[in-house]
Structures are given as C-alpha cells and as structure tokens.
C-alpha cells in the first residue's frame, strides 16, 4: 500500500505535459518583458536621469521588498477594486504582470552592476573614435556587460519558471494547478507532486544546459 504507484505516475506525465506550454509561455513572456523593463531601469540608474532615478529606486525597493505572492494577489484581487477597467484582468495576465514587475526589479540591479563594471577605458576608446553615447552603449558597453550579466539573469529565469506555479493560486490551471486537481481526485498526493517536481527539475536542467552553451559562446572572444 505504501509502495510508490509508478503506473499512476507514468499515466500522469502526459496529462500534466498538456499544461507545460502555458507554464513556459508565462515564463518566457515574463522574462522578455522583465528584461526590457530591467534594461530601461538599469540605464536610468546608470545615467542617473533626474526624476526618473528616484522613481526607479522606489520601484525596485517595493518589488524587491514584498513577496511575489502578495504582489500577485494585489494585482489579481486588489487592483480591480481600485480601477474598474481591470475587472477583466485574467489570472494569466496578472501572473505575467507580477512576474515582470517583480523580476525586473532584481534584474535591473544586476544589469546595472554589469554596465558599471565595464572599464571606463572602453568608453574613452569609443569616444576617441567618434562614437556618440548611444553608439558606445549599444556597440561597446552593453555587449561586454551582457557577458557578465548572463549567469545571474539565467538564475532569475530559472526562478521565474518555478514562480509561475504561483499562478494556480489565481485559479490558473498550469502545471501546478493541473497537478493539484489530479491529486485531489486520486488522493495520491506524493506521486502527483513528486511527478510535477521532476518535470520542473528537468525543465530547469534543460535551461542550465542552454546556459552553459550560451556562456561558452559569449566567452569565445576571451579564450586564450
């Protein structure tokens, strides 16, 4: 009776995998949007753009300083009470919004650190051959900063994939939500949750493999 029900687990895999695309879609959408937002925030911080700099600091402070689950509840349950037009907001949209804002706050700081870490002599060389500030940012500083930022950004992406599981608290049936439903039907909780754990684990391992390849490529210029 206490032996693992492997047949049930094998049967569960194809059922759960149907929800994998939604999980990945939320993670990828969140990652892309968070990256764009984080780059903007990082540039504001690096250039200390007056006015925006203070707002950015407040933004980062709030979204780093409060739990993601609280932020998701705030967007999904809280905001629609405040702003009537948000009543249409779905669980998926709220999740992507939450992931974007939450993770962009972290990512902005690591992108900023990577930009500041590019030696001043690189900027001087670029200026000396006539580049504008925009050109030297785009062609010289950001490519070098990317190499430094990629490992930490990939870490956040891994974290974000797992954080999509919180969407089930907003009534979204993604990987975690589907598992929860299956488990409460079969009462085989251990089997169900160890199965979904392995699925998450494999996704993350796949991503880690991709990360190693990406880093090898980015380091090509630096091989001796």
């Amino acid at each position, binding site marked *: 009776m206490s032996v693992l029900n492997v047949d049930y687990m094998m049967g569960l895999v194809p059922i759960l995998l149907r929800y994998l695309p939604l999980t990945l879609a939320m993670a990828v959408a969140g990652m892309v949007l968070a990256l764009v937002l984080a780059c903007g925030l990082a540039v504001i911080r690096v250039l200390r753009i007056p006015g925006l700099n203070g707002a950015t600091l407040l933004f980062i402070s709030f979204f780093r300083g409060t739990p993601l689950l609280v932020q998701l509840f705030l967007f999904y349950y809280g905001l629609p009470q405040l702003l009537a037009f948000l009543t249409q907001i779905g669980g998926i949209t709220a999740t992507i919004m939450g992931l974007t804002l939450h993770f962009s706050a972290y990512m902005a700081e690591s992108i900023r650190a990577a930009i500041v870490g590019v030696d001043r002599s690189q900027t*001087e060389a670029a*200026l*000396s*051959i*006539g580049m504008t500030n925009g050109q030297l940012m785009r062609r*010289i500083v950001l490519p*070098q900063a990317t190499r430094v930022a990629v490992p930490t950004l990939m870490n956040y992406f891994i974290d974000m994939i797992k954080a999509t599981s919180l969407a089930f608290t907003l009534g979204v049936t993604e990987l975690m939500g589907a598992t929860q439903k299956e488990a409460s039907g079969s009462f085989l909780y251990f089997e169900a949750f160890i199965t979904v754990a392995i699925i998450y684990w494999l996704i993350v391992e796949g991503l880690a493999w991709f990360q190693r390849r990406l880093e090898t490529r980015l380091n090509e210029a*630096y091989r*001796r």
Partner: protein
Amino acid sequence: MNEQATTAASNTSRMIEMRGLNKWYGDFHVLRDIYLEVERGERIVICGPSGSGKSTLIRCINHLEEFQKGDLTVGRLPMTRDIKRIEQIRRQVGMVFQHFNLFPHLTVLENCCISPIWVQKKPRQEAEAQAMQYLERVQIAEQALKYPGQLSGGQQQRVAIARSLCMHPDVMLFDEPTSALDPEMIKEVLDVMVELAHEGMTMLCVTHEMGFAKTVADRVIFMDQGQIIEENAPDRFFSDPQSERTQLFLSQILGH
C-alpha cells in the same frame, strides 16, 4: 587687408591652438595657462615627470578631459561644451592609449571597422577593405580575425593605431603608447609611429622614448607641475636644456 590674408593662410596650416588653458581637479591645479600651437604636419613630443599634466593636456584636445578656462581650437573648430561639436572634433583626432583599450569582444578587424561603419556610415565591405589596408600597414593583417586577448601587447598597440587611422584623423595623439609594453615590443610600435611621422601625420606624443624624440620630433615640450617649462627643437632640447628642472629631469631619465 594684407594682414587678413596672412591670418587666413596661417589658419589653414594650424592644427591645434591652445590659448591660456587651465584645468583644475577640485583644488588641484593640473594645467596652468597653457599656450601651444601645433602646425599641420608637425610632430611634437611631450615629456615630464609623472603628474606633470602631460596626459591631461593631450586628453583635453579630444575632450576626454574638460578644461575650465582658456580657448582650444582643433582644425578650424573651437572647442565648446556642445556635444555635437565635441563629436565633430573627436572624428578628426585619433588617440592611442597606454593600455591599448581595444574592444575585447570584437575581433581585430571589427575593432577597426566599428567606427567607420557606425560613425562614418560606410558600407561594411568598404570599411573592411580599408581596415585591411591599415592592418597591412602596421603589419598585422594576418591576425585580423583574432581577438585582442590572443595578441601580444605590441601587436595590440599596433592594432590600436590602425583602429585610429581608419577614421582618417587629421592629428594623432599618443598617450605613453609604449609604457605598458615589454622592452622587446617597444620597437615594433615605435617603428609604426616613425613611419607615420614620415608620412606627414600631425602627431602629439606623450612619451619618454627620447630616441623617438630625437629621430622624428620637430619640437620637444617639457612639462612640470601643470606648466610648459621649456620647448625646443630636439637637438637643442637635449644638448642645451635651459631650465634647471629640465636638466634634472633629463639627467634622471638619461642617466642610466
């Protein structure tokens, strides 16, 4: 009328003109009342003890350093704080740094093409062909597809010179170009600089390579504590230094 004509004529041959340049870092007075005129095609060597302001002086010419007082004209363009003007001047002025400052994420060829392509908007093919010509001239064309990290210091510095030349500068600034090099690599860089001098490039070189100064310089300038102490033709400068500070400096660097 006659006077006007003379002024106009002298203006066309003047490359750099500094009038009463002053610069402070906080309370520290780095450049004191610098007056300097450099004619087109002239080769100037600037020397002096460390902290004398010689690097700061040439870095003012392409506005890597800002000065607080005085006037600077490069070509026919007066330096202002307007970014468009600064960029305009930078496109006429090449600079070679002590630590080469090549872009490590780009190949040698890409280092030389990046500004022609994005600043001068040349077609990639044309930029690459031109870059190969200059790399040929500094005798490093066979390394074009390598990354800077795979080259020796001397090779990197020659690439840095080629990268500057690809912008067709009217004047080249050298900021201690051989100071970071192992002794056996100094010559390969100096050879390139000598050749450039013989081709008529206007050059301002901060260097302690006195052999180079003797061979190619039209004028040697000695700076100390932010001032130009002495300037003279190299044979006079070395055989008959006027000020005590110059004599002391020369005895220190030539004495061993």
